[in-house]
């Protein structure tokens, strides 16, 4: 092996060489005083650079950071209050709202029947309260046969079809 340049020596010192190359360097160092001297100088540089401690911060530094973080908390709390209105539109709240709407519709249909009002020919209502209606694949096409592209189970008069009903039908609930 030829004598090493500054780069090789730094790589060796920083343990950035693969083991095979390290072995070569070690063998060369054992018989080359010039490279050994270079390595020692670099070792001194590295030790010297590591011996100067980091510049200290002032005494109240950590307390200052913690105070700033504390001051940020009220702002974060009001943020979460603002979010709560948006939370109405998150899936869990949306589902509750959809269930309420469903109850109202069922009651309306029931009362209409009781009052002896003429029954409409077909009273099929579709409500979407989740991905089920949009994604038939979730239940498999065999469960709900299509007739000429129409969902036969949905054609039953007076039945309110929602995803929740389908979920109940398929046994998940």
């Amino acid at each position, binding site marked *: 092996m030829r004598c090493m340049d500054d780069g090789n020596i730094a790589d060796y010192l*920083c343990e950035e060489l693969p083991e095979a190359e390290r072995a070569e360097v070690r063998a060369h160092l054992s018989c080359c005083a010039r490279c050994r001297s270079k390595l020692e*100088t*670099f070792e001194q540089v590295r030790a010297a650079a590591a011996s100067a*401690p980091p*510049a200290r*911060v002032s005494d109240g530094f950590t307390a*200052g*950071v*913690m105070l700033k973080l504390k001051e940020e908390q009220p702002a974060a709390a009001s943020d979460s209050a603002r979010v709560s209105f948006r939370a109405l539109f998150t899936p869990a709240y949306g589902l509750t709202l959809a269930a309420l709407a469903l109850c109202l519709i069922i009651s309306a249909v029931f009362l209409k029947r009781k009052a002896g009002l003429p029954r409409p020919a077909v009273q099929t209502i579709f409500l979407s309260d989740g991905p089920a209606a949009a994604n038939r694949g979730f239940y498999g096409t065999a469960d709900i046969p299509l007739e000429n592209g129409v969902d036969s189970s949905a054609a039953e008069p007076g039945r309110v079809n929602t995803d929740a009903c389908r979920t109940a039908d398929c046994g998940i609930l």
Partner: protein
Amino acid sequence: MQYQDRNNGSLAPENAIIGRFMNGSESAFAELVDLYKDRIHQFIICVLGPDREAEDLAQEVFIQIYRSLRTFKRESSFSTWAYAVTRNVCRHRLRARGREMRLFSGGEESGDLLKAAAAVPGPGSSLETKETKAVIRAAVEALPPIHRAVLFLNCWERLSYEEISRVLDIPVGTVRSRLHNAMAALAGIIKPVLGPEK
């Protein structure tokens, strides 16, 4: 003063502290600040040079760390991640100040290295041992920012070339050449201070 947790993998004390912080302990975060405050401060000084805002920036770094620590994936060591956050904070501050961001380009490298050589007394000067550290610090401070940053991360923090490349967002080859240049320049400068050649 020597820190024992330099890139020391699972033995690093910050791992236990971060664990407690994740479990809701606010005081654990104060411990983390105590452990890293001087190092982050020093790194800011490496990047920006002596700066009257260095402490303010260090505080800003810890606030950023607090906000995003829960998303820290531990794919790298905490120190690598924390220094990358610091670099970003410095970069934003420089942009806000409207300065040209040339810190990591190494544009004036040879000139600055010559300035670094001139910053330290020559071979004829007699220096007390207790002054050695001040001389070394002066020599390091006179280096260009990227050399200072690479030296600090490699010599003090013992980060690998790859880790330094991630912290500074520069190629590994650049890390390597900057480190070699900085070490060679420092070797020429501090050799007379550290004693005769063996």
